């Protein structure tokens, strides 16, 4: 069977174009998403809002950072309690998990000895709740940054 040179060249070009399209679909352009989802999740947990900042969502990042940090600082200012890991009661353990959500803020509070060990006044109880809820909100924001990276959310 005879094939004209023009047809041969055209079919070669088409096959090359298909291969290029397949390659570009399989591998996104380098540098478009420099951080993996796991790194963004951990970064967002350790420093409130950092997961969003790493993806260029800086307004969201600032708002999340201010909200979580202010709640944590207000809790400390009200003499709220910082839970530690070595407790036997279930509620204290849950409080510790909540506090742990604050990431670097919890590490700093443990290192510098911030917070009270025993709640003595009513507002200190509010402070304890502020610190725990700040940690839980930070968990939510870190998972949100993770979802943004995976494309589940825009």
């Amino acid at each position, binding site marked *: 069977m005879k094939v004209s040179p023009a047809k041969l060249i055209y079919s070669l070009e088409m096959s090359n174009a298909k291969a290029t399209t397949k390659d570009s679909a399989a591998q996104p352009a380098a540098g478009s998403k420099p951080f993996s989802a796991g790194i963004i999740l951990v970064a967002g947990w350790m420093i409130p809002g950092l997961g969003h900042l790493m993806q260029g969502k800086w307004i969201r990042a600032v708002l*999340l950072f201010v909200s*979580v940090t202010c709640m944590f600082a207000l809790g400390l*200012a009200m003499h709220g309690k910082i839970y530690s890991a070595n407790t036997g009661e279930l509620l204290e353990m849950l409080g510790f998990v909540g506090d742990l959500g604050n990431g670097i803020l919890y590490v700093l509070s443990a290192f510098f000895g911030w917070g009270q060990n025993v709640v003595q006044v009513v507002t200190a109880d509010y402070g304890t709740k502020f610190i725990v809820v700040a940690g839980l909100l930070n968990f939510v924001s870190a998972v*949100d940054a993770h979802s943004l990276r995976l494309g589940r959310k825009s």
Partner: protein
Amino acid sequence: MYTPSHFTAVLLFALFTSVVFGITQRSETRAMIRYGLYCFCLFVLGTIAASWAMWLIKH
């Protein structure tokens, strides 16, 4: 030591929590603001309603 009133504590709690909920639970900016305001109102009004309910139970 910072000792806010009960209502101030409610307002502060509702404000920061609503900001995080608005950002994390919605995708578009306008929807975020609306949902944040909705959460703030629910927190504050819900607390006031629960306070009155407790007052009525006591009396």
